[in-house]
Protein backbone atom coordinates (compact mmCIF):
# COMPACT_ATOMS: atom_id res chain seq x y z
CA UNK A 1 0.00 0.00 0.00
CA UNK A 2 1.48 3.29 -1.01
CA UNK A 3 1.55 6.26 1.33
CA UNK A 4 -0.19 8.44 -1.22
CA UNK A 5 -3.43 6.46 -1.14
CA UNK A 6 -3.63 7.01 2.60
CA UNK A 7 -3.42 10.76 2.50
CA UNK A 8 -6.67 12.67 2.96
CA UNK A 9 -8.24 14.08 -0.15
CA UNK A 10 -7.72 17.64 1.03
CA UNK A 11 -4.01 17.14 0.63
CA UNK A 12 -4.24 15.85 -2.90
CA UNK A 13 -6.51 18.63 -4.04
CA UNK A 14 -3.74 20.54 -5.70
CA UNK A 15 -2.13 18.43 -8.32
CA UNK A 16 1.62 18.12 -8.20
CA UNK A 17 2.11 19.62 -11.63
CA UNK A 18 -0.13 22.51 -10.86
CA UNK A 19 1.72 23.12 -7.62
CA UNK A 20 5.05 23.03 -9.38
CA UNK A 21 3.78 25.49 -11.96
CA UNK A 22 2.44 27.74 -9.24
CA UNK A 23 5.80 27.64 -7.45
CA UNK A 24 7.60 28.71 -10.59
CA UNK A 25 5.12 31.45 -11.35
CA UNK A 26 5.27 32.88 -7.84
CA UNK A 27 9.04 32.87 -7.89
CA UNK A 28 9.00 34.73 -11.21
CA UNK A 29 6.64 37.36 -9.87
CA UNK A 30 8.78 37.98 -6.80
CA UNK A 31 11.85 38.17 -8.98
CA UNK A 32 10.18 40.85 -11.08
CA UNK A 33 9.43 42.82 -7.91
CA UNK A 34 13.10 42.70 -6.97
CA UNK A 35 14.00 43.70 -10.50
CA UNK A 36 12.07 46.97 -10.16
CA UNK A 37 14.84 48.35 -7.97
CA UNK A 38 17.44 47.60 -10.61
CA UNK A 39 15.19 49.17 -13.23
CA UNK A 40 14.88 52.26 -11.02
CA UNK A 41 18.64 52.70 -11.02
CA UNK A 42 18.77 52.19 -14.75
CA UNK A 43 15.88 54.62 -15.13
CA UNK A 44 17.67 57.27 -13.09
CA UNK A 45 20.90 56.82 -15.01
CA UNK A 46 19.10 56.65 -18.34
CA UNK A 47 16.95 59.75 -17.93
CA UNK A 48 19.70 61.84 -16.38
CA UNK A 49 22.22 60.82 -19.03
CA UNK A 50 19.78 61.19 -21.89
CA UNK A 51 18.97 64.81 -21.04
CA UNK A 52 22.47 65.64 -19.81
CA UNK A 53 24.07 64.42 -23.05
CA UNK A 54 21.68 66.57 -25.08
CA UNK A 55 22.69 69.46 -22.85
CA UNK A 56 26.40 68.78 -23.32
CA UNK A 57 25.95 68.84 -27.10
CA UNK A 58 25.20 72.55 -26.71
CA UNK A 59 27.44 73.34 -23.76
CA UNK A 60 30.91 71.76 -23.62
CA UNK A 61 31.41 69.55 -20.55
CA UNK A 62 34.60 71.35 -19.68
CA UNK A 63 33.10 74.83 -19.62
CA UNK A 64 30.20 73.44 -17.55
CA UNK A 65 32.53 71.96 -14.95
CA UNK A 66 35.01 74.82 -14.74
CA UNK A 67 32.88 77.88 -15.48
CA UNK A 68 32.56 80.34 -12.64
CA UNK A 69 29.41 82.06 -13.82
CA UNK A 70 25.99 80.40 -13.52
CA UNK A 71 23.20 82.32 -15.23
CA UNK A 72 21.36 79.83 -17.47
CA UNK A 73 18.03 81.61 -17.17
CA UNK A 74 19.32 84.90 -18.57
CA UNK A 75 18.85 85.76 -22.21
CA UNK A 76 21.66 84.59 -24.52
CA UNK A 77 24.40 87.25 -24.40
CA UNK A 78 24.42 87.04 -20.59
CA UNK A 79 23.66 83.34 -20.42
CA UNK A 80 26.39 81.29 -18.82
CA UNK A 81 26.64 77.66 -17.77
CA UNK A 82 29.50 77.35 -15.29
CA UNK A 83 28.34 75.06 -12.51
CA UNK A 84 31.06 75.92 -9.99
CA UNK A 85 29.00 78.53 -8.09
CA UNK A 86 26.29 75.91 -7.43
CA UNK A 87 28.88 73.33 -6.36
CA UNK A 88 30.57 75.92 -4.14
CA UNK A 89 27.21 76.81 -2.56
CA UNK A 90 26.48 73.16 -1.89
CA UNK A 91 29.89 72.55 -0.36
CA UNK A 92 29.72 75.73 1.72
CA UNK A 93 26.45 74.64 3.32
CA UNK A 94 27.75 71.11 3.78
CA UNK A 95 30.87 72.44 5.51
CA UNK A 96 28.85 74.51 7.97
CA UNK A 97 26.55 71.53 8.60
CA UNK A 98 29.55 69.25 9.13
CA UNK A 99 31.11 71.68 11.60
CA UNK A 100 27.97 71.29 13.72
CA UNK A 101 26.89 67.73 13.10
CA UNK A 102 30.16 65.82 13.25
CA UNK A 103 31.33 66.91 16.73
CA UNK A 104 27.83 67.06 18.21
CA UNK A 105 26.81 63.75 16.64
CA UNK A 106 29.98 61.98 17.75
CA UNK A 107 29.74 63.38 21.27
CA UNK A 108 26.11 62.29 21.46
CA UNK A 109 27.08 58.82 20.29
CA UNK A 110 29.86 58.55 22.90
CA UNK A 111 27.49 59.75 25.59
CA UNK A 112 24.79 57.27 24.60
CA UNK A 113 27.09 54.31 24.16
CA UNK A 114 29.62 54.85 27.00
CA UNK A 115 28.04 57.07 29.64
CA UNK A 116 24.26 57.01 29.61
CA UNK A 117 22.46 54.49 31.80
CA UNK A 118 19.92 52.36 29.94
CA UNK A 119 16.99 54.44 31.14
CA UNK A 120 18.46 57.69 29.85
CA UNK A 121 19.40 56.05 26.56
CA UNK A 122 15.84 54.86 26.14
CA UNK A 123 14.49 58.40 26.53
CA UNK A 124 17.06 60.13 24.34
CA UNK A 125 16.97 57.77 21.38
CA UNK A 126 13.28 58.34 20.53
CA UNK A 127 13.86 62.10 20.80
CA UNK A 128 16.66 61.82 18.26
CA UNK A 129 14.40 59.69 16.06
CA UNK A 130 11.76 62.41 16.13
CA UNK A 131 14.45 64.94 15.19
CA UNK A 132 15.40 62.75 12.25
CA UNK A 133 11.78 62.37 11.16
CA UNK A 134 10.87 66.05 10.96
CA UNK A 135 10.20 67.09 7.35
CA UNK A 136 12.82 69.30 5.81
CA UNK A 137 10.36 72.09 4.98
CA UNK A 138 9.90 72.45 8.72
CA UNK A 139 13.64 72.84 9.20
CA UNK A 140 13.58 75.44 6.42
CA UNK A 141 10.84 77.34 8.23
CA UNK A 142 12.85 77.16 11.46
CA UNK A 143 16.03 78.43 9.78
CA UNK A 144 14.28 81.30 8.05
CA UNK A 145 11.97 82.49 10.81
CA UNK A 146 13.97 81.76 13.94
CA UNK A 147 17.68 81.08 13.41
CA UNK A 148 18.32 83.84 10.89
CA UNK A 149 16.64 86.60 12.99
CA UNK A 150 18.52 85.37 16.06
CA UNK A 151 21.83 85.41 14.21
CA UNK A 152 21.07 88.84 12.80
CA UNK A 153 21.05 90.21 16.34
CA UNK A 154 24.67 89.15 16.68
CA UNK A 155 25.73 89.65 13.06
CA UNK A 156 23.77 92.64 11.78
CA UNK A 157 25.21 92.36 8.27
CA UNK A 158 23.74 88.87 7.80
CA UNK A 159 21.34 88.65 4.86
CA UNK A 160 17.81 87.25 5.19
CA UNK A 161 18.75 84.32 2.98
CA UNK A 162 22.18 83.05 3.93
CA UNK A 163 24.30 79.93 3.93
CA UNK A 164 25.11 80.18 7.62
CA UNK A 165 21.73 79.58 9.20
CA UNK A 166 20.75 77.01 6.56
CA UNK A 167 24.01 75.18 7.29
CA UNK A 168 23.58 75.35 11.06
CA UNK A 169 20.04 74.01 10.92
CA UNK A 170 21.10 71.31 8.47
CA UNK A 171 23.77 70.38 11.00
CA UNK A 172 21.05 69.94 13.62
CA UNK A 173 19.08 67.89 11.12
CA UNK A 174 21.84 65.36 10.42
CA UNK A 175 23.02 64.99 14.03
CA UNK A 176 20.70 61.99 14.57
CA UNK A 177 22.11 60.26 11.51
CA UNK A 178 25.72 60.76 12.65
CA UNK A 179 24.97 59.76 16.21
CA UNK A 180 22.90 56.67 15.52
CA UNK A 181 25.31 55.23 12.93
CA UNK A 182 28.36 55.99 15.11
CA UNK A 183 26.65 54.56 18.15
CA UNK A 184 25.94 51.34 16.27
CA UNK A 185 29.64 51.12 15.45
CA UNK A 186 30.60 51.73 19.09
CA UNK A 187 28.13 49.20 20.43
CA UNK A 188 29.79 46.62 18.18
CA UNK A 189 33.10 47.08 20.02
CA UNK A 190 33.37 44.09 22.34
CA UNK A 191 33.10 44.57 26.10
CA UNK A 192 36.35 42.77 26.66
CA UNK A 193 38.33 45.63 25.09
CA UNK A 194 36.74 48.12 27.46
CA UNK A 195 37.20 45.87 30.45
CA UNK A 196 40.87 45.31 29.62
CA UNK A 197 41.40 49.07 29.57
CA UNK A 198 39.50 49.58 32.83
CA UNK A 199 41.56 46.83 34.43
CA UNK A 200 44.70 48.78 33.52
CA UNK A 201 43.31 51.72 35.44
CA UNK A 202 42.00 53.80 32.57
CA UNK A 203 39.29 56.33 33.30
CA UNK A 204 36.01 56.31 31.44
CA UNK A 205 37.07 59.15 29.16
CA UNK A 206 40.31 57.34 28.30
CA UNK A 207 38.41 54.17 27.50
CA UNK A 208 35.96 56.13 25.34
CA UNK A 209 38.46 58.19 23.40
CA UNK A 210 41.44 55.85 23.20
CA UNK A 211 39.83 52.43 23.00
CA UNK A 212 36.23 52.59 21.82
CA UNK A 213 36.47 55.43 19.29
CA UNK A 214 39.61 54.06 17.55
CA UNK A 215 38.11 50.57 17.49
CA UNK A 216 34.90 51.90 15.93
CA UNK A 217 36.65 54.39 13.68
CA UNK A 218 35.67 52.81 10.38
CA UNK A 219 32.00 52.91 11.33
CA UNK A 220 32.29 56.47 12.59
CA UNK A 221 34.01 57.68 9.42
CA UNK A 222 31.36 55.92 7.34
CA UNK A 223 28.68 57.66 9.41
CA UNK A 224 30.33 61.02 8.71
CA UNK A 225 30.53 60.33 4.99
CA UNK A 226 26.91 59.14 4.70
CA UNK A 227 25.65 62.13 6.70
CA UNK A 228 27.56 64.54 4.47
CA UNK A 229 26.19 62.85 1.38
CA UNK A 230 22.74 63.37 2.84
CA UNK A 231 23.57 67.04 3.40
CA UNK A 232 24.70 67.47 -0.20
CA UNK A 233 21.43 66.08 -1.51
CA UNK A 234 19.20 67.95 0.93
CA UNK A 235 16.81 70.20 -0.93
CA UNK A 236 13.95 72.02 0.75
CA UNK A 237 15.87 73.44 3.70
CA UNK A 238 18.39 75.18 1.43
CA UNK A 239 15.75 76.23 -1.07
CA UNK A 240 13.86 78.01 1.69
CA UNK A 241 16.66 79.47 3.78
CA UNK A 242 19.83 79.80 1.72
CA UNK A 243 18.59 81.90 -1.17
CA UNK A 244 18.59 81.74 -4.94
CA UNK A 245 21.69 83.66 -5.96
CA UNK A 246 24.40 81.37 -7.36
CA UNK A 247 27.67 82.81 -6.12
CA UNK A 248 31.23 81.61 -5.94
CA UNK A 249 31.98 82.55 -2.37
CA UNK A 250 33.42 81.18 0.84
CA UNK A 251 31.49 83.59 3.00
CA UNK A 252 28.59 81.83 4.76
CA UNK A 253 26.94 85.18 5.56
CA UNK A 254 26.00 85.64 1.93
CA UNK A 255 23.03 84.37 0.02
CA UNK A 256 23.96 81.49 -2.27
CA UNK A 257 22.28 78.75 -4.26
CA UNK A 258 22.89 75.02 -4.02
CA UNK A 259 22.59 72.49 -6.82
CA UNK A 260 19.40 71.07 -5.33
CA UNK A 261 17.81 74.49 -4.84
CA UNK A 262 18.52 75.32 -8.47
CA UNK A 263 16.73 72.18 -9.63
CA UNK A 264 13.68 73.16 -7.57
CA UNK A 265 13.78 76.73 -8.85
CA UNK A 266 13.68 75.62 -12.49
CA UNK A 267 11.10 72.88 -12.03
CA UNK A 268 8.82 75.47 -10.41
CA UNK A 269 9.36 77.99 -13.15
CA UNK A 270 8.20 78.45 -16.68
CA UNK A 271 11.08 76.73 -18.49
CA UNK A 272 9.71 74.70 -21.39
CA UNK A 273 10.27 70.94 -21.33
CA UNK A 274 13.00 70.10 -23.81
CA UNK A 275 14.55 73.57 -23.85
CA UNK A 276 18.20 74.13 -23.02
CA UNK A 277 17.23 75.88 -19.78
CA UNK A 278 15.18 72.88 -18.76
CA UNK A 279 17.99 70.45 -19.58
CA UNK A 280 20.34 72.24 -17.18
CA UNK A 281 18.54 70.64 -14.25
CA UNK A 282 19.35 67.18 -15.58
CA UNK A 283 23.00 68.11 -16.04
CA UNK A 284 23.10 69.49 -12.50
CA UNK A 285 21.13 66.49 -11.24
CA UNK A 286 23.56 64.12 -12.91
CA UNK A 287 26.50 65.84 -11.23
CA UNK A 288 24.67 65.68 -7.90
CA UNK A 289 23.90 62.00 -8.41
CA UNK A 290 27.57 61.26 -9.15
CA UNK A 291 28.75 63.23 -6.10
CA UNK A 292 26.46 61.43 -3.68
CA UNK A 293 27.11 58.08 -5.33
CA UNK A 294 30.86 58.49 -4.90
CA UNK A 295 30.38 59.41 -1.24
CA UNK A 296 28.04 56.50 -0.56
CA UNK A 297 30.37 54.03 -2.23
CA UNK A 298 33.26 55.54 -0.26
CA UNK A 299 31.23 55.04 2.93
CA UNK A 300 30.66 51.35 2.23
CA UNK A 301 34.28 50.97 1.19
CA UNK A 302 35.52 52.49 4.46
CA UNK A 303 33.36 50.13 6.47
CA UNK A 304 34.47 47.05 4.56
CA UNK A 305 38.11 47.93 4.16
CA UNK A 306 38.99 49.17 7.64
CA UNK A 307 36.58 47.31 9.83
CA UNK A 308 38.31 45.72 12.80
CA UNK A 309 37.04 42.20 13.11
CA UNK A 310 36.49 40.83 16.58
Amino acid at each position, binding site marked *: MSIASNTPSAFRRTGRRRAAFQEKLVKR*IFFLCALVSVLTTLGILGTLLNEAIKFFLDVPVWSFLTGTQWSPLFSPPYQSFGVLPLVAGTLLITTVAAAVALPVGLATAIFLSEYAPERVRKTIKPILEVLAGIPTVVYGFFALTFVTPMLQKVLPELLVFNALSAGLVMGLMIVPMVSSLSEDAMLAVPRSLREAAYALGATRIQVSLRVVVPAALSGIVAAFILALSRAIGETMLVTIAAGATPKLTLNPMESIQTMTAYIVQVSLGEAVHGSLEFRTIFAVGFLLFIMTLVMNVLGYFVVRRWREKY
Partner: protein
Amino acid sequence: MKQHEQLFTPRRTARKITGVVFYALFLSAVVLSIAGLLTLVIQVLIEGVPWLSWHFLTNYPSRHAEEAGILAAMTGTVYLMVLTAALTIPLAIGAAIYLEEFAPKNWFTTIIEINISNLAGVPSIVYGLLGIALFVSWMNLGRSLLAGSMTLALLILPIVILASREAIRAVPDTYRQAAYALGATQWQVVRGVVLPSSLPGILTGVILAMSRAIGEAAPVIAISALVYLTFVPGSPLDRFTVLPIQIFNWISRPGDDFRGIAAAGIIVLLVILLSMNAVAIYLRNRFQTRSEE
Protein backbone atom coordinates in the same frame (compact mmCIF):
# COMPACT_ATOMS: atom_id res chain seq x y z
CA MET B 1 60.72 52.86 42.68
CA LYS B 2 62.14 55.88 40.95
CA GLN B 3 62.17 54.16 37.58
CA HIS B 4 58.59 53.21 38.16
CA GLU B 5 57.54 56.76 38.56
CA GLN B 6 59.13 57.72 35.28
CA LEU B 7 57.23 55.04 33.42
CA PHE B 8 53.89 55.74 34.96
CA THR B 9 52.62 58.89 36.58
CA PRO B 10 49.06 58.54 37.82
CA ARG B 11 48.09 62.20 37.30
CA ARG B 12 44.94 61.46 39.20
CA THR B 13 43.62 65.00 39.41
CA ALA B 14 44.41 65.80 35.80
CA ARG B 15 42.64 62.68 34.60
CA LYS B 16 39.64 63.38 36.78
CA ILE B 17 39.39 66.91 35.44
CA THR B 18 39.61 65.77 31.83
CA GLY B 19 36.94 63.21 32.61
CA VAL B 20 34.58 65.81 34.03
CA VAL B 21 35.27 68.30 31.24
CA PHE B 22 34.57 65.77 28.51
CA TYR B 23 31.51 64.47 30.31
CA ALA B 24 30.20 68.01 30.34
CA LEU B 25 30.97 68.33 26.63
CA PHE B 26 29.18 65.09 25.72
CA LEU B 27 26.22 66.00 27.86
CA SER B 28 25.96 69.47 26.34
CA ALA B 29 26.00 67.93 22.85
CA VAL B 30 22.97 65.86 23.78
CA VAL B 31 21.29 68.82 25.43
CA LEU B 32 22.02 70.92 22.34
CA SER B 33 20.13 68.57 20.01
CA ILE B 34 17.21 68.26 22.39
CA ALA B 35 17.13 72.03 22.92
CA GLY B 36 17.19 72.48 19.13
CA LEU B 37 14.19 70.20 18.75
CA LEU B 38 12.32 71.91 21.59
CA THR B 39 13.00 75.40 20.20
CA LEU B 40 11.81 74.29 16.80
CA VAL B 41 8.58 72.85 18.15
CA ILE B 42 7.92 75.84 20.42
CA GLN B 43 8.63 78.31 17.62
CA VAL B 44 6.20 76.50 15.32
CA LEU B 45 3.55 76.37 18.05
CA ILE B 46 3.90 80.06 18.93
CA GLU B 47 3.59 81.12 15.30
CA GLY B 48 0.99 78.59 14.25
CA VAL B 49 -1.51 77.97 17.03
CA PRO B 50 -3.30 81.33 16.68
CA TRP B 51 -4.02 80.44 13.06
CA LEU B 52 -5.39 76.97 13.67
CA SER B 53 -9.14 76.82 13.31
CA TRP B 54 -11.89 74.74 11.83
CA HIS B 55 -12.02 77.21 8.99
CA PHE B 56 -8.33 76.61 8.28
CA LEU B 57 -8.85 72.86 8.05
CA THR B 58 -11.89 72.98 5.80
CA ASN B 59 -11.07 75.67 3.26
CA TYR B 60 -9.08 76.12 0.09
CA PRO B 61 -6.02 78.38 -0.20
CA SER B 62 -6.64 82.05 -0.67
CA ARG B 63 -4.74 85.20 -1.47
CA HIS B 64 -5.73 86.49 1.95
CA ALA B 65 -3.95 84.72 4.78
CA GLU B 66 -6.89 84.93 7.16
CA GLU B 67 -9.16 83.14 4.69
CA ALA B 68 -6.69 80.52 3.55
CA GLY B 69 -7.23 76.87 4.35
CA ILE B 70 -5.47 73.62 3.92
CA LEU B 71 -8.21 71.32 2.62
CA ALA B 72 -6.79 70.77 -0.88
CA ALA B 73 -3.34 69.99 0.51
CA MET B 74 -4.65 67.65 3.18
CA THR B 75 -6.81 65.61 0.85
CA GLY B 76 -3.99 65.66 -1.70
CA THR B 77 -1.63 64.24 0.88
CA VAL B 78 -4.10 61.50 1.84
CA TYR B 79 -4.74 60.52 -1.80
CA LEU B 80 -1.06 60.61 -2.64
CA MET B 81 -0.21 58.41 0.35
CA VAL B 82 -2.93 55.87 -0.42
CA LEU B 83 -1.76 55.55 -4.04
CA THR B 84 1.88 55.40 -3.02
CA ALA B 85 1.20 52.71 -0.45
CA ALA B 86 -0.82 50.69 -2.96
CA LEU B 87 2.09 50.80 -5.39
CA THR B 88 4.91 50.28 -2.89
CA ILE B 89 3.66 47.61 -0.53
CA PRO B 90 3.20 44.71 -2.98
CA LEU B 91 6.43 45.51 -4.82
CA ALA B 92 8.48 45.87 -1.66
CA ILE B 93 7.14 42.73 0.01
CA GLY B 94 7.62 40.77 -3.20
CA ALA B 95 11.19 41.95 -3.56
CA ALA B 96 11.94 41.26 0.11
CA ILE B 97 10.47 37.74 -0.11
CA TYR B 98 12.46 37.05 -3.25
CA LEU B 99 15.72 38.18 -1.70
CA GLU B 100 15.19 36.39 1.61
CA GLU B 101 13.45 33.19 0.55
CA PHE B 102 14.02 32.48 -3.13
CA ALA B 103 17.12 34.24 -4.42
CA PRO B 104 20.03 32.01 -5.39
CA LYS B 105 23.42 33.12 -4.09
CA ASN B 106 24.92 34.51 -7.29
CA TRP B 107 26.33 37.70 -8.74
CA PHE B 108 22.95 38.96 -9.88
CA THR B 109 21.47 38.72 -6.40
CA THR B 110 24.49 40.60 -5.07
CA ILE B 111 23.90 43.31 -7.67
CA ILE B 112 20.26 43.64 -6.62
CA GLU B 113 21.29 43.93 -2.97
CA ILE B 114 24.03 46.51 -3.53
CA ASN B 115 21.69 48.38 -5.83
CA ILE B 116 18.95 48.61 -3.21
CA SER B 117 21.24 49.98 -0.53
CA ASN B 118 22.65 52.47 -3.03
CA LEU B 119 19.18 53.62 -4.04
CA ALA B 120 18.46 54.43 -0.40
CA GLY B 121 21.26 57.02 -0.60
CA VAL B 122 20.16 58.77 -3.78
CA PRO B 123 18.98 62.35 -3.04
CA SER B 124 15.22 62.66 -3.25
CA ILE B 125 15.34 65.50 -5.78
CA VAL B 126 17.00 63.08 -8.23
CA TYR B 127 13.88 60.91 -7.99
CA GLY B 128 11.96 64.05 -8.83
CA LEU B 129 14.01 64.43 -12.02
CA LEU B 130 13.35 60.78 -12.85
CA GLY B 131 9.65 61.41 -12.32
CA ILE B 132 9.63 64.49 -14.56
CA ALA B 133 11.39 62.71 -17.40
CA LEU B 134 9.81 59.28 -17.10
CA PHE B 135 6.29 59.69 -15.75
CA VAL B 136 5.35 63.30 -16.51
CA SER B 137 6.84 63.56 -20.01
CA TRP B 138 7.57 60.14 -21.44
CA MET B 139 4.55 58.28 -20.09
CA ASN B 140 2.53 61.44 -20.62
CA LEU B 141 0.88 61.35 -17.23
CA GLY B 142 1.30 65.09 -16.81
CA ARG B 143 1.83 66.72 -13.45
CA SER B 144 -0.71 64.35 -11.96
CA LEU B 145 -1.40 62.57 -8.72
CA LEU B 146 -0.43 59.29 -10.37
CA ALA B 147 2.95 60.58 -11.56
CA GLY B 148 3.62 61.93 -8.07
CA SER B 149 2.74 58.70 -6.33
CA MET B 150 4.79 56.59 -8.75
CA THR B 151 7.80 58.81 -8.05
CA LEU B 152 7.30 58.61 -4.30
CA ALA B 153 6.79 54.85 -4.52
CA LEU B 154 10.19 54.43 -6.17
CA LEU B 155 11.70 56.74 -3.53
CA ILE B 156 10.52 54.75 -0.52
CA LEU B 157 10.80 51.32 -2.15
CA PRO B 158 14.36 50.67 -0.93
CA ILE B 159 13.43 51.70 2.62
CA VAL B 160 10.44 49.37 2.74
CA ILE B 161 12.41 46.52 1.15
CA LEU B 162 15.19 46.84 3.74
CA ALA B 163 12.68 46.91 6.62
CA SER B 164 10.69 43.98 5.22
CA ARG B 165 13.83 41.91 4.74
CA GLU B 166 14.75 42.48 8.36
CA ALA B 167 11.29 41.43 9.49
CA ILE B 168 11.40 38.31 7.33
CA ARG B 169 14.88 37.44 8.58
CA ALA B 170 13.59 37.66 12.15
CA VAL B 171 11.18 34.74 11.56
CA PRO B 172 12.88 31.75 13.23
CA ASP B 173 14.04 29.05 10.83
CA THR B 174 12.34 26.42 12.96
CA TYR B 175 8.96 27.76 11.78
CA ARG B 176 9.94 27.20 8.17
CA GLN B 177 11.37 23.75 8.87
CA ALA B 178 8.21 22.72 10.71
CA ALA B 179 6.13 23.68 7.70
CA TYR B 180 8.46 21.95 5.26
CA ALA B 181 8.34 18.83 7.41
CA LEU B 182 4.57 18.81 6.95
CA GLY B 183 5.13 18.74 3.21
CA ALA B 184 4.47 22.38 2.41
CA THR B 185 5.94 23.82 -0.76
CA GLN B 186 8.12 26.90 -0.67
CA TRP B 187 5.27 29.21 -1.66
CA GLN B 188 3.01 27.62 0.96
CA VAL B 189 5.70 28.22 3.59
CA VAL B 190 6.02 31.84 2.55
CA ARG B 191 2.27 32.44 2.42
CA GLY B 192 1.26 30.47 5.45
CA VAL B 193 4.19 30.91 7.81
CA VAL B 194 6.74 33.57 6.88
CA LEU B 195 4.36 36.35 5.84
CA PRO B 196 1.93 36.13 8.77
CA SER B 197 4.68 36.13 11.37
CA SER B 198 6.67 38.93 9.77
CA LEU B 199 3.67 41.10 8.98
CA PRO B 200 3.84 43.39 12.03
CA GLY B 201 7.50 44.10 11.30
CA ILE B 202 6.78 44.78 7.66
CA LEU B 203 3.88 47.02 8.61
CA THR B 204 6.12 49.02 10.94
CA GLY B 205 8.59 49.53 8.11
CA VAL B 206 5.80 50.58 5.77
CA ILE B 207 4.41 53.14 8.21
CA LEU B 208 7.85 54.62 8.92
CA ALA B 209 8.56 54.85 5.18
CA MET B 210 5.17 56.47 4.61
CA SER B 211 5.88 59.03 7.29
CA ARG B 212 9.06 59.85 5.42
CA ALA B 213 7.06 60.16 2.20
CA ILE B 214 4.46 62.43 3.77
CA GLY B 215 7.04 65.04 4.68
CA GLU B 216 8.97 64.68 1.44
CA ALA B 217 8.61 67.82 -0.59
CA ALA B 218 11.46 68.00 -3.09
CA PRO B 219 10.46 65.27 -5.57
CA VAL B 220 6.76 66.08 -5.29
CA ILE B 221 7.39 69.76 -5.90
CA ALA B 222 9.37 68.89 -9.02
CA ILE B 223 6.41 66.85 -10.26
CA SER B 224 3.47 69.01 -9.27
CA ALA B 225 5.07 72.47 -9.22
CA LEU B 226 3.34 75.19 -7.22
CA VAL B 227 -0.31 75.03 -8.02
CA TYR B 228 -3.11 77.09 -6.74
CA LEU B 229 -5.81 74.48 -6.33
CA THR B 230 -9.30 75.23 -5.23
CA PHE B 231 -10.57 71.72 -5.73
CA VAL B 232 -9.98 68.26 -4.40
CA PRO B 233 -8.42 65.94 -6.99
CA GLY B 234 -11.13 63.65 -8.36
CA SER B 235 -9.05 61.20 -10.35
CA PRO B 236 -5.45 59.96 -10.31
CA LEU B 237 -4.77 62.03 -13.41
CA ASP B 238 -5.77 65.32 -11.80
CA ARG B 239 -3.29 67.88 -10.61
CA PHE B 240 -2.65 67.92 -6.90
CA THR B 241 -0.91 69.62 -4.05
CA VAL B 242 0.26 68.25 -0.72
CA LEU B 243 0.94 69.63 2.75
CA PRO B 244 4.71 70.21 2.40
CA ILE B 245 4.21 72.00 -0.92
CA GLN B 246 1.46 74.18 0.52
CA ILE B 247 3.67 74.98 3.50
CA PHE B 248 6.60 75.81 1.22
CA ASN B 249 4.31 78.01 -0.81
CA TRP B 250 3.22 79.96 2.25
CA ILE B 251 6.76 80.23 3.63
CA SER B 252 8.01 81.75 0.41
CA ARG B 253 5.41 84.52 0.47
CA PRO B 254 6.23 87.80 2.12
CA GLY B 255 4.35 88.86 5.20
CA ASP B 256 3.96 87.67 8.75
CA ASP B 257 0.44 86.40 8.18
CA PHE B 258 1.49 83.81 5.65
CA ARG B 259 4.28 82.82 7.99
CA GLY B 260 1.62 82.16 10.61
CA ILE B 261 -0.48 79.91 8.41
CA ALA B 262 2.68 78.16 7.25
CA ALA B 263 3.32 77.33 10.90
CA ALA B 264 -0.29 76.20 11.31
CA GLY B 265 0.18 73.92 8.30
CA ILE B 266 3.36 72.57 9.88
CA ILE B 267 1.44 71.74 13.05
CA VAL B 268 -1.09 69.74 11.02
CA LEU B 269 1.75 67.93 9.22
CA LEU B 270 3.59 67.16 12.46
CA VAL B 271 0.45 65.87 14.15
CA ILE B 272 -0.14 63.44 11.25
CA LEU B 273 3.51 62.38 11.36
CA LEU B 274 3.61 61.85 15.10
CA SER B 275 0.44 59.79 15.09
CA MET B 276 1.84 57.59 12.32
CA ASN B 277 5.03 57.12 14.32
CA ALA B 278 3.02 56.29 17.42
CA VAL B 279 1.21 53.54 15.52
CA ALA B 280 4.55 52.20 14.28
CA ILE B 281 6.02 52.17 17.79
CA TYR B 282 2.90 50.45 19.15
CA LEU B 283 3.16 47.77 16.47
CA ARG B 284 6.88 47.33 17.08
CA ASN B 285 6.36 46.82 20.80
CA ARG B 286 3.58 44.31 20.26
CA PHE B 287 5.73 42.49 17.77
CA GLN B 288 8.71 42.37 20.10
CA THR B 289 6.80 40.97 23.07
CA ARG B 290 5.22 38.35 20.85
CA SER B 291 8.44 36.95 19.51
CA GLU B 292 9.83 36.65 23.02
CA GLU B 293 6.97 34.39 24.11
